[in-house]
């Protein structure tokens, strides 16, 4: 091809923007005193441990649940699937916040029932919380792979006398290894960049130490730590790019009919997870609501959150379409897409710090909603790009060719064929960005306009002041709005189609 596709210049521009925060961090980090000391090593150790345990935990929980939801004919299948994915609607810091308050001596469980429970804190606490809120990534990725498998090989194995569990282990799982790996890497990435959970549970990971340094005038040290964190994120992104999805000719999915006792047993095994991840946090929030009422909360905070997140979702989708297009069109486009993925590895605290300094160079932007939305877009654009691209890749290219042969111009073919077919992916991508922007905390703290309080910043404020009870309404609202975003996202996802095909 001699001419660049139309999408390349836009993708290039977006990629350059994505690199801006890194440049700012480098300039801030130059006058740092220490490149690396024993304390960094400890922080690095904590961060890597949390990541590894989270990824492992998410696989241990997510894979069996994927098998369960993909193949087993449980009563109310659909209900179980929705309930098992529901932790995605709960920001992990609300989980951390409520579980921290529920457990331990003097915690809510202790006060209400007199039961002595161990405290929820440190590495173990943070790893449990992270696992509870990231296993759906593994569940969804693995389930999607499972549904794409051709089950005739399992049938063959079983005909040849292999027991069911063994054939699942030896014949099915190796073929969905990539799906599992993709989900596990997402979980690891999440654990790496989350700020609220380790901060609330008192584990010194990169994000928390960066926040402490930043708040203690240690700006260059914070920038240096941020660059180290980015290096780890870059490594995970590299690993992620190595994971290739396998294709086989999909057949009718495997269907397993459990006996009534088996079904009961399976549901019993699932219940503790749901109890800990969803029921208990919601119960604590309702308890606080009942006990303390609404406090100083006003609906304005919810509107601020929603408004900024909607803007971010709209802008992200507009930018993601050409980037996804470029990524499909060629190697260079693919490379630019990888650069944009860097944004996903930049935690909010780092993005916030960098953009404060960038904003100060452009006073018209400083402390405006625009700069905040810009930060959201840079951080969450990869989510939209990924969703839209995977959706567009699955399009049958011959449809566009047919349109072209019939005389449509490239733009007309895009408008009348590609766009309508990718609309689901676009909605899903936008919803994903909305979901993440709603709950984003550290960048919002640093970049929001004056007088601009969101659900997340309000939650953080009452947490820091120790007024836990006032977290009830914003916490519940955040869960409800996230739930709506999640529902919208799944309404645009492919697995929904698949599900209806199965029925």
């Amino acid at each position, binding site marked *: 091809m001699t001419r660049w596709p139309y999408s390349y210049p836009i993708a290039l521009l977006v990629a350059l923007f994505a690199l801006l925060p890194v440049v700012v961090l480098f300039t801030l980090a130059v006058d740092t*005193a220490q490149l690396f*000391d*024993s*304390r960094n090593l*400890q922080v690095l150790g904590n961060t890597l441990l949390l990541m590894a345990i989270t990824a492992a935990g998410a696989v241990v929980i997510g894979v069996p649940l994927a098998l369960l939801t993909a193949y087993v004919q449980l009563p109310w299948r659909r209900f179980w699937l929705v309930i098992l994915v529901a932790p995605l609607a709960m920001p992990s810091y609300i989980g951390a916040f409520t579980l921290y308050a529920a457990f*331990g*001596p*003097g915690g809510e469980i202790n006060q209400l029932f007199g039961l002595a429970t161990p*405290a929820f804190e440190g590495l173990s606490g943070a790893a449990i919380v992270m696992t509870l809120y990231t296993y759906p990534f593994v569940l969804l990725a693995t389930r999607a792979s499972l549904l794409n498998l051709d089950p005739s090989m399992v049938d063959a194995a079983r005909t040849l006398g292999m027991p069911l569990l063994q054939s699942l282990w030896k014949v099915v799982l190796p073929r969905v290894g990539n799906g599992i790996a993709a989900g596990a890497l997402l979980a690891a990435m999440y654990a790496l960049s989350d700020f609220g959970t380790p*901060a*609330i549970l*008192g584990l010194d990971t990169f994000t928390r*130490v960066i926040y*402490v*340094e*930043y*708040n*203690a*005038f*240690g*700006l260059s040290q914070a920038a240096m730590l941020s660059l180290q964190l980015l290096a780890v994120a870059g490594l995970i992104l590299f690993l992620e790019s190595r994971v290739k999805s396998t294709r086989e000719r999909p057949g009718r999915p495997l269907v397993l009919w459990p006996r009534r006792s088996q079904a009961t047993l399976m549901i019993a095994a699932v219940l503790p997870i749901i109890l800990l991840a969803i029921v208990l946090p919601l119960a604590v929030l309702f308890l606080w609501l009942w006990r303390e009422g609404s*406090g*100083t909360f006003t609906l304005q905070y919810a509107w601020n959150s929603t408004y900024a997140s909607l803007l971010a979702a709209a802008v992200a989708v507009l930018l993601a379409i050409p980037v996804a297009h470029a990524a499909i069109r060629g190697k260079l486009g693919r490379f630019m897409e990888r650069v944009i993925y860097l944004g996903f590895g930049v935690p909010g605290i780092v993005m916030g710090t960098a953009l*404060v*300094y960038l904003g*100060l*160079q452009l*006073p018209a932007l*400083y*402390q405006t909603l625009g700069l905040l939305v810009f930060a959201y877009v840079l951080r969450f654009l990869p989510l939209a790009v990924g969703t839209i691209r995977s959706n567009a890749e699955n399009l049958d290219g011959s449809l566009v060719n047919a349109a072209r042969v019939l005389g449509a111009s490239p733009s007309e073919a895009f408008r009348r064929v590609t766009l309508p077919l990718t609309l689901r992916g676009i909605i899903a991508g936008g919803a994903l960005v909305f979901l993440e922007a709603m709950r984003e905390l550290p960048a919002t*703290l*640093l970049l929001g306009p*004056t*007088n601009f*309080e969101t659900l997340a*910043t309000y939650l953080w*404020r*009452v947490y*820091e*002041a*120790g*007024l836990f009870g006032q977290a009830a309404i914003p916490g519940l609202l955040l869960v409800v709005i996230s739930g709506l975003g999640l529902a919208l996202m799944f309404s645009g996802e492919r697995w929904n189609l698949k599900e209806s095909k199965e029925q």
Partner: protein
Amino acid sequence: MQRRAFLQSLALLGVAGALPASIRALAAAPAAVSVDDLPALEGELTLYLGRGEGGLYEDVLNAIQKRNPKFTLNIRRGPTAALANAIVAEARAGVRRADLFWAVDSGAIGLVNSAGLAQPLPHSLTGQLQPEFRFPDWTPISGRIRTLPYNRERLAAEDIPDDIMALADSDLKIGWAPAYASFQSFVTAMRLLKGDKVTKEWLRAVSKHAKKYAGELGVVMAVERGEVDVGFANHYYTLRLKSGKPDARVNLAFTNNDAGCLVNASGIVALSEGELPVNFIRYLLTREVQSYLANEAFEIPLVSGIAPPNGLPSLGTVSPPTVDLTKLADLRPTLNLMRSAGVL
């Protein structure tokens, strides 16, 4: 309800009652001014408000706004040190957004002032404060004292050493919040009084039997629950906890003439010129606001002639060390020290 009564009294006193002329007469008066005697505020100000006081400062700000309908106050909330960072970075970039900075810790004020950003304040304002809290370019609003809250079911008052250094060698289980600005100011004071080496050894030794919390309210709650025996925290967290829960199992102990009983202050600094910021600060030093902060937030009033909060021994019975509060801004070495001791 004391809180509501305060809000009403401040709001309903009416603008008509304000007598701008009387302000000059008050310059010489030792006692606290009433909001009735202050000029009405007109115009717009942006206040950077250091976070951490759980809505009590907000009540004060709301009442002031209610009383002055022609006055708009934009509030930017954030951690005190982050806001101080932002103010300095903004000045360097030639962007000024804040007219006032209300910090919960005098160290952050020192940082802003040493960058040369503070506007001088008239004596008619600073003269209202108790003599040791008068500064030319910032105003303390309320005082807080470092204390050792202890679990009274596990320990008696005489089990607590009255020397902060002795705590390092004790076998008491200690709760602390090293990431908290007030704690860092306390370590800075220790550094200034005892030197870096001794302070680092102390941090190392204490960290062996210490448990970390996010904030000092968390420390006090942990002491109350019996998770730790004793903690390091500003005095008001304990008093607030006890006011809501009178049978709380926590009492206050004080050390003697060392960093352990440092008296620190929240304070405000004017960043832009003119009458309006100064007059705004006058409101914070009124009898009404100072009594409110003492009664509801349990902070120590610093204007002459206002009663201290209930439950706190008078400042005469404790012996705080002599430390120049603005020197507490020298945080960088403190943080390096804390990092190398592995506690931050």
